[in-house]
């Protein structure tokens, strides 16, 4: 390991033997710390998920009502905020300091940010488990929690805000110090968009949680519930759009690492990220479509991201990432027919499996259902039913979490500098997790179509004052959800096993190649694959991807129109 200290900087670097990147040791330690915290909260949130699924699976109905809502609160925070944001902070430090060959600005501040996030997340979990914050993740006023619950969220958000600002500073200083030439790498550009969204998210979080905190202390008489919903959702929804941008960046990274894919056209891919940055935050309105107050014009303009321009961004990625994979595969000689490149893809390489499964579940299920239930009028037949969790488990869990899991396997040799153990498990893990999440999500969406509410302990209404009978088929759809969740939990345990065994056993070794299973040297240094400058000739043009994307569009249209038909069957309302 070569350690160098650059004269212009106050940082110590080692040179990665695989990628030849200069790695700031301070940044590397922070990446490890944040990734470890992320995995700890993933494990806790996963335990909560198991308990919830076994409760909503009506035949088992495990938890009592108070613990169900408590665990649901913890699950929402740990998964949607703690796991994802810790991992993203690790990703931001990686995408700025490491990929730009630069030093991380303000490592001490970064440790302060880390400490604030850890204290905040622990505080939230402690208050929730003590029964002092039975308000669910959304904490809608005037439901009131203990002041320390709000303070925990604020601590976490301030910590994350510092980390985001350090990312901006690092990119800025790297440019000034000439650590990279020309434009930012596409992966860093994607993370930049994630950070831009994160800034807006965290400022909104302050607008929501600071008044709620003061109100819980008795210093404010009242927080308007409509105001809280507006600013909470410009925290809660964009928080998940950070995931989207970061996940797409990870997709590009995994495509490069596993099959040596390079972006087909930088302009095309960057346009998609620019559309995200500009318009995706408007999607916060998805949560307010069936709310009293806002006008049709506001709801329509915002829910459609000003004419679905953020959806256009996703459609671009839906073409350009599979297209890049196809072109890379065709260059390697898999040019027969439309799909030889796909048949002969490295399905046994965990990063590739995670990438493809994540893209399919995110796009075909998460993306399509999201646009449909985010349509102003259709929202009325979906609002607060299990279709919503169905949508965001397809995006955040089957999409983002699976992509992040896939990436972790590659960070272990490169950043933790440990050999990946239990490789066979790692190869199976993406498939197990994806099958489980697919069933869980289909179960939720099916239940939601039957009108089954989300966030509900007992849909049999056993002790309710009036008799209520919901469709009996819900027993089946909820069981499918429960079985899927069990399988996904197994997938989660496999992931934890691989990560923990690799990190905590065995000596430190320098990585010798980028891929884990495939016998390939690092595509970042090997120049075997011609790059974007070359014209894409007809023989290697991504024909298969064109077929796949049009099939996607047909499926999208069919589900979309079916939902208008469903809406047309309900009572007239205006």
């Amino acid at each position: 390991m070569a350690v160098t200290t650059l004269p212009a900087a106050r940082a110590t670097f080692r040179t990665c033997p695989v990628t030849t990147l200069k790695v700031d040791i301070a940044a590397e330690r922070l990446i490890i710390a944040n990734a470890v915290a992320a995995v700890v909260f993933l494990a806790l949130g996963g335990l909560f998920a198991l308990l919830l699924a076994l409760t909503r699976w009506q035949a088992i109905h495990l938890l009592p009502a108070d613990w169900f809502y408590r665990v649901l609160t913890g699950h929402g925070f740990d998964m949607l905020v703690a796991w994802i944001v810790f991992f993203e902070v690790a990703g931001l430090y990686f995408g700025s300091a490491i990929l730009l060959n630069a030093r991380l600005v303000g490592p001490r501040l970064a440790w302060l940010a880390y400490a604030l996030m850890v204290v905040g997340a622990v505080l939230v979990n402690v208050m929730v488990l003590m029964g002092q914050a039975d308000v669910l993740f959304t904490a809608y006023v005037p439901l009131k929690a203990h002041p320390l619950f709000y303070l925990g969220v604020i601590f976490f958000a301030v910590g994350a805000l510092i980390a985001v600002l350090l990312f901006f500073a690092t990119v800025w200083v790297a440019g000034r110090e000439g650590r990279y030439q020309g434009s930012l790498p596409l992966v860093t550009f994607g993370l930049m968009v994630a950070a831009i969204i994160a800034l807006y998210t965290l400022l909104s979080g302050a607008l929501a949680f600071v008044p709620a905190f003061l109100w819980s202390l008795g210093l404010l008489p009242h927080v308007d519930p409509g105001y809280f919903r507006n600013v909470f959702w410009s925290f809660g929804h964009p928080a998940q759009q950070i995931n989207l941008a970061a996940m797409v960046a990870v997709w590009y990274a995994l495509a490069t690492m596993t099959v040596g894919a390079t972006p087909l056209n930088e302009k095309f891919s960057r346009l998609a990220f620019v559309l995200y940055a500009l318009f995706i935050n408007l999607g916060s309105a998805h949560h307010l479509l069936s709310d009293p107050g806002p006008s049709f014009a506001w709801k329509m303009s915002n829910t459609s991201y000003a004419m679905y321009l953020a959806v256009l961004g996703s459609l671009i990625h839906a073409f350009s990432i599979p297209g890049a994979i196809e072109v890379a595969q065709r260059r390697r000689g898999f040019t027969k027919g439309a799909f030889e490149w796909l048949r002969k893809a490295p399905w046994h390489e965990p990063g590739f499996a995670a990438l493809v499964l994540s893209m399919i579940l995110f796009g075909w299920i998460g993306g399509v259902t999201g646009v449909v239930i985010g349509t102003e009028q259709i929202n009325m037949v979906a609002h607060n039913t299990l279709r919503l969790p169905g949508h965001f488990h397809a995006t955040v869990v089957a999409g983002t979490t699976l992509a992040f899991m896939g990436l972790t396997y590659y960070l272990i040799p490169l950043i933790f500098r440990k050999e990946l153990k239990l490789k066979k498990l790692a190869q199976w893990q993406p498939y197990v997790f994806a099958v489980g999440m697919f069933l869980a999500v289909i179960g939720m969406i099916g239940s939601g179509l039957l009108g089954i509410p989300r966030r509900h302990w007992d849909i049999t209404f056993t002790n309710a004052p009036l008799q209520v009978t919901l469709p009996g088929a819900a027993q089946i759809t909820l069981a499918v959800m429960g079985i899927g969740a069990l399988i996904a939990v197994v997938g989660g345990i496999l992931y934890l096993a691989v990560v923990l065994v690799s990190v905590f056993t065995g000596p430190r070794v320098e990585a010798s190649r980028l891929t884990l299973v495939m016998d390939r040297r690092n595509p970042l240094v090997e120049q075997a694959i011609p790059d974007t400058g070359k014209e894409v000739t007809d023989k290697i043009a991504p024909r298969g991807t064109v077929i796949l994307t049009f099939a996607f569009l047909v499926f999208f249209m069919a589900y979309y129109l079916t939902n208008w038909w469903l809406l047309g069957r309900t009572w007239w309302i205006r």
Partner: protein
Amino acid sequence: MVSPQALWWKPLHRYEKTWLIVGLVFCVFLTAMMPLWFVLGRQNVPTTTYRVDPLQYAVFVTRWAEANKVDILNNIPVVAPAPGSDVYLLGRQWQWYPVLRLQKGQTYRLHLSSQDVQHGFSLQPTNLNLQILPGYEYVATITPTTSGEFAVICNEFCAIGHHLMVGKIIVTE
């Protein structure tokens, strides 16, 4: 994952161009569907909302229900309002109050609000859902198109008794 070559602002491949245009047309279609349905569709999200004092609303609905009740169901008054009239429903921990008896094919102005925390008005099995906020009086002009007994469940978490919060709308032919 590494910086692109210095000049990457290049024309799109014809596949990319085609996909971009198809995508854009699709987005315009998705956008146009909403105003189209707003003008032509029978099911639109209500847009009428007033500011209201939660307690005042609760007192008003209680008086209205007591004055117009035609029956009692499990201690909850049943109101059968005249077609075309203003109808009130109050959400509170943990009850939808009162029970309403409506006529199929008739139109009512249904007022919805909460006395305490946020609730979710969820009419089943018709599957029609609206968010209910204290301080906001939401007015929906509704026409039942099916008859029978409909459950109003709560689908927004409203503290520990949330899953016990039910109400009823009975629609006669």
